[in-house]
């Protein structure tokens, strides 16, 4: 079994507390094989509170469900990756007397609370979007008739929930 914990003087890194991954010798392993280093520039690194992989998601997902985790008391930073990692532009079109151009700067939108993430949509055509952000994705019909974007359903979603407060008034020492 490899040495996994060192409190002392490591040949690469100096004095500190180090923890290596399973089967990696904490005394000699590469930095990439350390789970923890008290000399890390991001202190202990950012802790993952929750995460998951969803083949599709069409409504709110409670990321506290597994293990009945406590609510962190703030909206955490969530990193997501899905099939719809794109921007989209429906170029200048004439519709009768109207000249229309629709742009979405980010299709991969979500709304967040302290316990959930929800696929969302900011419709690019303001006249169709008096509500602002919609907690739903397009699943077939675009904003202005057919062929204006098509389906934008959330699929192949991976995400991690980090213990980093991500809301105004919470980015202070009380929560970090």
């Amino acid at each position: 079994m490899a040495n996994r914990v060192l409190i002392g003087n490591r040949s690469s890194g100096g004095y500190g507390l180090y923890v290596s991954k399973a089967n990696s010798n904490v005394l000699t392993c590469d930095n990439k094989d350390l789970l923890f280093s008290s000399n890390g520039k991001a202190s202990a690194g950012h802790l993952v509170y929750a995460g998951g992989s969803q083949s599709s998601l069409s409504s709110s997902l409670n990321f506290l469900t597994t293990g009945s985790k406590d609510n962190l008391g703030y909206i955490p930073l969530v990193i997501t990756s899905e099939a719809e990692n794109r921007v989209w532009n429906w170029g200048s079109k004439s519709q009768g007397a109207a000249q229309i151009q629709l742009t979405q700067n980010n299709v991969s939108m979500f709304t967040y609370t302290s316990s959930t993430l929800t696929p969302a949509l900011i419709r690019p055509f303001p006249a169709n979007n008096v509500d602002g952000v919609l907690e739903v994705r397009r699943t077939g019909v675009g904003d202005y008739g057919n062929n204006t974007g098509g389906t934008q359903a959330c699929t192949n979603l991976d995400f991690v929930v980090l213990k980093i407060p991500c809301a105004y008034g919470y980015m202070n020492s009380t929560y970090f």
Partner: protein
Amino acid sequence: MANRVLLGNRATGGYGMYVSEAGQNVLTCNKSKLLFYTDSGETGSSFVAKGTHQAVPFSGGTGSTAPVTKNTVNLSSASSASLSYQNLGSSNFLYTAKNSQSNASSSDFERGANFSSVGATGATINRLGNGDTYDVVVFKKLSTNALY
């Protein structure tokens, strides 16, 4: 100076290894103030974290060589490309973004990319729409479960 490292029996949490934030007494502080805690499968109000968020290097991270954690992929002409990164385990996910187009074209376009065939040492990046370059980062997943 506060006690910051404990190897032993903590009043709340039992035997394990604990590291507290600067200024926090590791013996008595709230668990929310712990930087590190040997996860014993705790749930509910005792839960601290699943582990540390980590980027998987494309290269480096050995000896004195700094890890390279960002890869810029040119998909101006090709519709896909292969990515290779170091083997830190099989459970990864990849991240890229192409946001905030400052000058939207008057013609149709899409820009973006997603990923397939994600494995321990490589994946495929697939262009969505028009050609562009993409910055890619690989993150570790701490579990393959649908929710963890």
